[in-house]
């Protein structure tokens, strides 16, 4: 089976060394997903694989046979941005824009993770379902670095959308 990126099928690479990130950016030509560190330390490469967010730099493309990968391009478009994309724009949840696709992919998954009741380090009592607090959002977004320091605006954008969707 091929790998599907934003519902478009692609053949797996011949060279097994190709990371999922490089495959998306280079082989599939969808450069919205960013390479910030290539070692799982910044989150700029975050994509959704079968709906679950991962660092695409720390995965091999050949390990995703049959998987559905959603990148920033798959979440919305210039004409039809997603609610989170609009909220990031409105709240100025970015500056240079390089970490932004990863932030938005993460935030998209975060809403589903809270909906599913997954706990985080900020969930005081892990037996309970997490509540949508700023601290929960901050903890769950901590795998996405933003050196411009847009963090407070990013939290505001996510809070706004999560409050409507949850």
């Amino acid at each position, binding site marked *: 089976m091929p790998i599907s990126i934003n519902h478009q099928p692609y053949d797996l690479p011949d060279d097994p*060394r190709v990371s999922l990130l490089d495959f998306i950016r280079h082989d599939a030509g969808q450069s919205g997903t960013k390479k910030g560190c290539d070692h*799982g330390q910044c989150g700029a490469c975050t994509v959704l694989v079968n709906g679950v967010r*991962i*660092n695409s730099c720390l995965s*091999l493309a050949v390990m995703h046979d049959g998987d559905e990968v959603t990148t920033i391009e798959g979440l919305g478009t210039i004409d039809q941005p997603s609610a989170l994309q609009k909220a990031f724009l409105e709240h100025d949840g970015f500056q240079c824009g390089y970490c932004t696709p990863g932030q938005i992919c993460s935030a998209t998954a*975060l809403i589903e993770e809270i909906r599913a009741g*997954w706990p985080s380090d900020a*969930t005081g009592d892990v037996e309970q379902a997490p509540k949508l607090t700023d601290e929960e959002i901050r903890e769950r977004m901590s795998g996405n670095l933003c050196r411009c320091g847009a963090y407070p605006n990013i939290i505001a954008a996510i809070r706004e959308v999560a409050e409507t969707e949850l």
Partner: protein
Amino acid sequence: MKPFDYQRAERLEHAGQLVADSGAMAIAGGTNLLDLMKLQVETPATLVDLGALPLDTIAEADGGLRIGALVTNTLTAADARIRGEYPLLARAILAGATQQLRNKATTGGNLCQRTRCYYFTNIDQPCNKRDPGSGCGAIKGIARLHAILGTSDQCIATYPGDMAVAMCALDATVEIAGGDGSTRSVPVRDFHLLPGDTPQRENVLEDGDIITAVLLPPPVSGQQIYRKVRERSSYAFAMCSVAAIVDQADGTITRADLAFGGLAHKPWHDPRIGELLVGAKPSLTLFDKAADLLLENAQGYGENDYKIPLARRALAAALCDATGLTA
């Protein structure tokens, strides 16, 4: 990365055969291995993808739980039984890495996580762990992350994970399938090794071995605390961490299972600490005595001297938290 042959293991026996080959390594989540392969710290000739093996469930077993080796850290921490009866494990996992990494990282892979020592990850530096006999850059270099317990003159690296520290306190067992078709169990407390003269060996796994599961013993009563001290409030390795299961009756401690992260080449467990605490009444003086035992043979290397007082304080904090004592 060096070129490698990529193989997908279809069955456990198949995986065992593939992994037994010289130069072969197993890959599950890949979050640690691929990081190191890009740096050429790891250069496997064959990469055996375990992803298709049916090791991805959590099941009840012998009154406890059997966590398949391929269960992701996320699903372990999100499991209702774990959250309810082994909250220590959920908390420890959630204190480590990020959601993205935990979504890929697996039980088996996380147990095998390599050290974060700066000299280990830089192939232009000496490191006895990566390149036996080349020396240790950290001992005379920057040892900020490094161990104060159980070190050797060959290596002062730490085991960097959180999950295994909780499993160590919980006295969990690692289930291992041997390349020859055998199965054996090793307590987590004995799974990781001290560096000694063979720092390249970090755990008891032999060629062809594949971790199949971790078995949690039946749940116990008491408070379960995971306390991690780190430089950032999230997404940082432990300067020191404490996993504690403490129960009390009539003001006396009846159970005290403790393990420590960030201090040694393995999750640190010292049975004398539990022996000291059980039967005693909680007090700061008692906790200090526990720390005396913990740190009896502690040795700093300059940059990491701070870990000695920090571990003492973190231990007291965790025990105060677990016993309800206020300082």
